[in-house]
């Protein structure tokens, strides 16, 4: 059996794997997001509100998670509708700005605790929930690659004009990619909230978004193994670097730079040169 410390690391890893998936889905369609923590926050607050503050009904945990994901997904689609028309650097900065806006809105939203956060969340997240949900999404995303939608994502990632000339509706497909990623981030947020038991807006800042982005860029975005590998490395490496004490994050940062230099396509990538 796992010790409770190991179990909490495993749960944390699972949440990170889901965050990695949430970046992977839009990335596979060529949409880079540096704002996934915003969707995570929406899922976290929505599900925590449902299980701990919404006393009129006894909302089951699974339903709360799903509704948290759905809330994030809906916001994702609404945000994406104008955002998918912009590309590259603009999209990166726009998603970054979105993540910060969500954070600031929660800071100012007193019914959910404002800057001092939301406490007293029930400890409903168990390792089995996390493993089951991670496995579900892994299988889902693995199979997605051999479906028309999955191929449409790749086609858009590779060449938007050619994809459109093959009958792919760019707008709708990108909305699905962005909304899907937001949904997964919302689920991750729900699991995180019922594991941390206390959430405040500062937990969902730019660092969280950047971290999720790094999982995918480090791991690679060719298939769902990449984000899993990235999340595992980034989550567990600091644990193995404990002997470095205060300098372990610095060492990790150096590894990050080395990875960007030596393996720009990610740990799991095509044999050919990485695509941009």
């Amino acid at each position, binding site marked *: 059996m796992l010790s409770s410390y190991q179990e909490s690391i495993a749960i944390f890893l699972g949440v990170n794997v889901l965050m990695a998936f949430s970046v992977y889905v839009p990335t596979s369609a060529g949409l880079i997001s540096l704002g996934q923590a915003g969707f995570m926050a929406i899922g976290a607050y929505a599900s925590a509100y449902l299980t701990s503050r919404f006393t009129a009904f006894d909302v089951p945990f699974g339903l709360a998670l799903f509704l948290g994901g759905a809330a994030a997904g809906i916001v994702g689609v609404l945000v994406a509708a104008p955002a998918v028309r912009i590309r590259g650097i603009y999209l990166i900065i726009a998603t970054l700005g979105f993540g910060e806006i969500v954070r600031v809105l929660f800071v100012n939203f007193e019914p959910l605790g404002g800057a001092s956060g939301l406490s007293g969340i029930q400890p409903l997240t168990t390792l089995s929930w996390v493993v089951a949900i991670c496995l*579900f999404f892994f299988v889902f995303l693995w199979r997605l690659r051999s*479906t*028309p939608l999955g191929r449409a994502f790749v086609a858009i*990632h590779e060449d938007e004009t050619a994809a459109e*000339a093959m*009958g792919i509706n760019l707008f709708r497909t990108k909305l699905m990619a962005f909304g899907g990623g937001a949904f997964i981030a919302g689920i991750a947020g729900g699991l995180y909230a019922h594991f941390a038991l206390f959430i405040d807006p500062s937990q969902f800042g730019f660092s969280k978004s950047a971290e999720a982005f790094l999982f995918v860029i480090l791991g690679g975005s060719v298939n769902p193994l990449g984000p899993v590998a990235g999340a595992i490395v980034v989550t567990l490496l600091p644990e193995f670097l404990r002997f470095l004490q205060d300098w372990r994050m610095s060492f990790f940062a150096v590894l990050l730079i080395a990875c960007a230099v030596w393996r720009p396509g990610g740990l799991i990538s095509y044999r050919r040169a990485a695509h941009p």
Partner: protein
Amino acid sequence: MTALLELRSVTQRFGGFTALDDVSCSIEAGSISSLIGPNGAGKTTLFNVISGLVMPSAGSLGFNGTDYTGRRPDEIVRLGIARNFQQVRLFPALSVIENVMVGAHLRLPRTGLLDFMGGPFNADRVDRLARSIATEMLDLVEFKSAGDTHPQQLTLVDQRRIEIARALASDPRLLLLDEPAAGMNPSESNQLGAIIRKIRDLGRTVLLVEHNMRLVMAISDHVSVLSAGKVIATGTPSSVQADPAVIAAYLGNV
């Protein structure tokens, strides 16, 4: 014979440059039509207009009796117009057969989200259907190598074949081919000519932009000549070949 595609006074300007100047023409259903003309005459621009990649500055486009001016490229594929690209634009991250399967998307039944996970109407069945369409199309264009290779490992000639197969996979009524014979040797272009005829015999209409005159004259029912953005001649291959205006355009009297 009825007109499948009809261009009415299409004009395309880029800044001060007029790439297409009041072009009107119609393509008959079931024909192989060719568009020829010197470099820079506006042939590829015309293809981009027909397939919706650029909006014409003026004029209208009709397909099968409906005006489709201003529609998006993906809607135009849905109408039944598919194309290849002069500079091959396959998806490098996808294998050959997956590239062609992308072209087949519009013909596949929609899958529900939960179908991915298994069950009777699962994604595998859709995948098999897409795969069989793609295999059929690759056979049609006489692509001989393995379908799971990646396009960039193949010769340009093979890549052009795959692009034609990808366009055909959407089951188009009109197939636009932009210089499909570029880079082909005589025996390969003869083979391509036979493939294009076969495509026509399957009931599709083909519009070809091509520099290879031997191919154009051998397979076309109609030839239009574009020069400096204007149609200067239309007719059967032999009548166009004898047209003094065409000869002048090609000899550089423009």
